[in-house]
């Protein structure tokens, strides 16, 4: 799954906008460890008393953490001392590559076999500033593995458009990410090769989350104090980002989202169904950390619900740049015209 995500991103890089390049370069730097909050730290509050989640957060530090836990780690949520040393070494080498501009020989770069154009220098993309101790993003089930797909979902994923299709007949053979339509709710937080920032803005009755990648904004209406979540629109109004409803449980923002368009976007390999329900929890755990957790419940896709939990961090100087994905989507024309040129060449050769 990591490989699939990386390759999709490699293709996406062909359409990388100038602003994304600049953002990566501006941010290349080592960062100090995030210390646990001291005893005097309190959850910051808005003037109206809600926990203050406002600002820009990023999951860059989760780069290199697998979504699913390697089987040999069993139910262990955190790395061993030796594993931590190894990851720390990896993170250090990638940071160094970003500084020197030299192409790393591991991770994402090593996975780009025979595609020199995609194996960009390390300072073109985002990377962890410090090593995470997590063995996987998935926290439940306890083995950190995503429950098996239903038969229906296996069929759905076999028929989905693929970024590896080098002979697309039309834009319809491309993924919705390649087409700059949407990446969905979770992709904004799960670490990707760049554009992992999200900006939170709050009012007493709304929390807005603005994603860096494909510039999508979620507008979450909050329940009035002591009242139930606001009623939803009908399921005739489905959308890529779904229809969210939020409320505060103590200091945790809980957001339940439904009414997704099914069969297109995926959280893991298989596109989810229109019965998907996401329950996300956001909680400040320190001056520089926001814990994110998402429970994926989609009986049409997974044989059991599962949850991913990981921290987002705020990084001084991190700016969200305008990601004009569709406006600068040269990859679409390039891939389609390359496919037509190949066909013409084969026709001329009498194949």
């Amino acid at each position, binding site marked *: 799954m990591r490989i699939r995500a990386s390759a999709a991103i490699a293709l996406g890089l062909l359409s990388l906008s100038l602003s994304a390049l600049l953002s990566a370069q501006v941010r290349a730097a080592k960062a100090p460890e995030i210390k646990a909050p001291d005893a005097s730290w309190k959850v910051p509050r808005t003037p*109206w008393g809600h926990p203050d989640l406002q600002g820009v957060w990023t999951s860059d530090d989760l780069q290199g953490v697998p979504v699913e836990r390697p089987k040999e780690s069993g139910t262990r949520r955190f790395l061993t001392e030796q594993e931590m040393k190894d990851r720390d070494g990896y993170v250090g080498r990638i940071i160094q590559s970003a500084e020197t501009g030299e192409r790393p020989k591991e991770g994402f770069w090593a996975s780009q076999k025979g595609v020199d154009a995609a194996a960009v220098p390390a300072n073109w993309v985002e990377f962890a500033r410090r090593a995470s101790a997590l063995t996987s993003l998935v926290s439940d089930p306890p083995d950190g593995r995503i429950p098996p797909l239903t038969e229906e979902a296996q069929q759905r994923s076999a028929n989905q458009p693929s970024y590896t299709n080098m002979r697309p*007949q039309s834009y319809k053979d491309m993924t919705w990410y390649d087409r700059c339509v*949407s990446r969905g709710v979770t992709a904004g937080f799960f670490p990707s090769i760049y554009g992992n920032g999200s900006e939170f803005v709050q009012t007493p009755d709304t929390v*807005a989350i603005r994603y860096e990648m494909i510039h999508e904004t979620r*507008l979450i209406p909050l329940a009035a104090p002591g009242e139930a979540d606001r009623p939803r629109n009908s399921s005739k109004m489905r959308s890529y980002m779904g229809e969210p409803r939020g409320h505060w449980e103590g200091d945790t923002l809980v957001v339940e989202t439904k009414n997704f368009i099914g069969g297109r976007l995926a959280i893991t390999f298989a596109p989810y169904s229109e019965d998907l329900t996401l329950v996300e929890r956001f909680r400040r755990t320190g001056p520089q950390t926001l814990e994110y957790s998402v429970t994926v419940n989609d009986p049409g896709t997974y044989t059991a619900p599962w949850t991913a939990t990981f921290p987002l961090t705020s990084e001084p100087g991190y700016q969200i*740049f305008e990601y*004009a994905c569709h*406006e600068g989507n040269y990859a679409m024309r390039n891939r389609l015209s390359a496919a037509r040129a190949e066909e013409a060449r084969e026709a001329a050769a009498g194949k």
Partner: protein
Amino acid sequence: MRRSLYTSGALWIAASAFAQVPKAADGHPDLSGIWQALGTANWDLEDHQPEPGPFYQLGAIGGVPPSRGVVEGGDIPYKPEALAQRKQNRANRWKSDPEIKCYMPGIPRATYLPYPFQIVQGTNVVLMAYSFASANRVIEMGKPKAPSVDTWMGTANGRWDGDTLVVDNSGFNGLSWLDRSGNYHSDALHVVERYTRVDRDHIRYEATIEDPKVFSRPWKISLALYRDVESNATLPEFKCVEMTEELLYRDLNGLKAK
């Protein structure tokens, strides 16, 4: 006497209407809500007559509706040498308008597109999220920031002038248009917007548009924004990319693509 009574009455009405304007925690007017311009500024900022559209099959729904313009003084003060470009844009309006391609609308056009947008007034920034193309921008209310790179939606710095939110916009890439009739600007565009919530359900929107490459002097537009007053109001997700792909990529379809 009669006149002064009338004036004080009008002032009293205005004052009581303004008293209904919700206030944010910091005491400034709260602009949060879902807003939309009515009228046809997006068709043409200047006064304009009705005109048939390019597809006769669309009949009455495919043409340009007439409307009063929103430009103060009536006409946009183009430099003489810049008028040729507008003329060319106008001749190609059904083909060249970036709105057709679902490109981000830029400022001020995002405000008077025929789709709603939502203002989320946070404590340090003001977010504006537009239904069209999922465009959005964050207005910095603290220390002004310089544009890092030219963009479609520009770089926005805000401040309060009494009860008016003033937003200074620059750092545009010059690729967007101002309306569907070919009014345009360059990358030297500088827009100062003023948002005044005059009562619970209305914002007076004004924008001063300056672009020394295209206009002979700064000029101003003024229009009302209306609040979506329904209790279940939500900003619809309008992913217009999907409506443009056949247009943008059809020429590269393979033989098997139907």
